[in-house]
């Protein structure tokens, strides 16, 4: 299973999904209309490392995080 966490202001509980790549995740999340704006402006991390492409394989136990726009300080 893959755990998906929504950080900061994205008001959504974590998901546990049976997927093997990021394309499948994009497909599932794009069905949720409330997420559409967040998907456009959020960064994606796998096991706390940011990724720049959907072309990534996932393995059982991976953690994916969605990071919406930031503003520290």
């Amino acid at each position: 299973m893959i755990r998906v966490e929504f950080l900061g202001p994205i008001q959504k509980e974590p998901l546990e999904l049976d997927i093997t790549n990021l394309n499948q995740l994009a497909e599932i999340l794009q069905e949720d209309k409330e997420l559409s704006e967040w998907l456009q402006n959020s960064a994606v991390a796998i096991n706390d490392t940011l990724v720049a492409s959907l072309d990534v394989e996932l393995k059982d136990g991976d953690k994916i995080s969605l990071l919406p726009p930031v503003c520290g300080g």
Partner: protein
Amino acid sequence: MVIKSHFYHLFVGVDMALELYNGGLDVPAILKKWYEEEAKSNYGAFIPFVGTIRDEDGITGLSFDIYEPILESWFEAWQEKAKAKGAIIKMAHARGDVMLHESSYISAVFSPKRRVALEFIDEFVEDFKASAPIWKYDLKGGERIYAADRSTAIKGSGILGEKL
């Protein structure tokens, strides 16, 4: 030394201090601590930056969420860059609510000579604003409102929204 009781310290390695506190920062205590830690380290320059919550737009304060694992690795990468120039960075940030005129953020660069520290603090704070996984909320009328218009998408954002 007076340090707030809710002090929470993450050691990211030797000389790599990233400090997170619940609520507003005790500026004099933190600056004193950092100064004393490096007083005998032979750095010729110590350039601190202190961010303070201003009274504007009717807010009573700001509030912050932090994602620590990525903040740590981001900070560690900057510490390596500093080290390559013979400098070190220290940073403290608040979690949760910070009220008007309190500080939410302090960073500082220590370097052998002033030029490196002056340039580095500028680059570091700019990248901090654009990349550090911290989310800001306005405290206004009893609500906690995400500061969407002041926030910046992290580089590489949007891949999950791409057309499939």
